């Protein structure tokens, strides 16, 4: 150990031995102080020699470098590792994103799945269903007309089948009227022209000729 009461001074002398003051004009004064001190303390020279010996020992045991092929392989490995790390995040995480999307789709499909469908069953005969059906003209046959409170008269011979047309005034002639009540007269009509089923809508003038 360099003989000096303060450790800080010992560290400064070590820095001088390490060449830290060389080329440092800003440390010229300190360098001169160290050199003066060393001149007055020749015993410190032994310590500096020890520093140099340790340095030489260190340098003489410097590890030999690996062979060139080893370096070449390492360069390739470094380049590959960097390329892998620098791949855009969208690409790096693509497999994870795809898996996440698939999972999301699966969850959505499960939650939005249609309710189990029940096959339509025919109406129970015991229940009352009103079935509205549309019949074609040829499917309907008029067998009877109760005319007392009817506001229209079917013209033709019953049963009537086929399409029924609205009778016009020129289609029929009223031959008689048999009133049961003043407001519910039933007229007997004669169809002239084509014999086809018609409806004669009773009008006030017709009812009271």
């Amino acid at each position, binding site marked *: 150990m360099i003989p000096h009461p303060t450790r800080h001074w010992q560290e400064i002398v070590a820095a001088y031995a390490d060449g*830290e003051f060389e080329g440092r004009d800003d440390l010229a004064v300190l360098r001169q102080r160290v050199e003066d001190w060393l001149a007055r303390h020749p015993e410190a020279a032994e310590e500096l020699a*020890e520093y140099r010996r340790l340095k030489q*020992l260190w340098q003489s045991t410097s590890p030999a470098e690996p062979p060139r092929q080893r*370096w070449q392989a390492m360069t390739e490995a470094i*380049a590959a590792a960097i390329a892998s790390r620098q791949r855009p995040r969208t690409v790096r995480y693509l497999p994870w994103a795809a898996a996440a999307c698939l999972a999301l789709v699966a969850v959505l499909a499960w939650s939005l799945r249609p309710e189990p469908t029940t096959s339509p069953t025919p109406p129970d005969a015991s229940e009352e269903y009103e079935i509205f059906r549309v019949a074609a003209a040829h499917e309907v046959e008029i067998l009877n007309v109760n005319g007392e409170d009817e506001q229209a008269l079917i013209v033709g011979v019953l049963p009537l089948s086929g399409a029924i047309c609205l009778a016009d005034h020129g289609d029929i002639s009223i031959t008689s009227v048999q009133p049961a009540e003043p407001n519910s007269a039933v007229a007997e009509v004669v169809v002239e022209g084509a014999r086809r089923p018609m409806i004669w809508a009773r009008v006030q003038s017709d009812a009271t000729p």
Partner: protein
Amino acid sequence: MATVSVWSVASDEQLLARWKRGDRQALDELFQRYRGVAYRVAYRLLGNEADALDAVQDAFVKTLTHLPNFQGRSSFKTWLLRVVSNSALDYGRKRGRHGLVRMDILGPQQREDMMPTVADESDRRLEQDELRRRLAAALGELPPAQRQTFVLHAEAELSYREVAEVLGISIGTVMSRLFYARQKLRALLGLGLTRK
């Protein structure tokens, strides 16, 4: 007439700029420029070739991957050596230092036997190997912070200021760590007088 070949040596900054642009050759040049010192630092801190190579590779990958974070306030060399030495210490912590002789378990005679001696030239290589092993063992006895500081200064030949920059410490701390590291190494290696 003599032919003079002039080599244009690119600076680290130029090589880094080229590497950023995807120039693979820039990586080769940077690697060739600093692989040696990086390896020696890692080797000194770990004591064996295999772990040292792993640490070097890891450090280069980390350094060049995080290149956008490199502000250029320090040199590439000091930045790389910071990563190398930290990486080596991490490897050392995880794996332990292999192949080292613990100085504290050696007796006085064994330590004396390991002292460098004047030998014939034919024995010099063996002596160097033994000396290297002994030095590595002594280095392993230092606290990690002292070891890292000493190796960066002695092996990478960084100045006090550069070591301070690499480790993010003051120059005074560097001086203190080096002082204690030297004292301990000298004691472990049996060099000189350890006057109190």
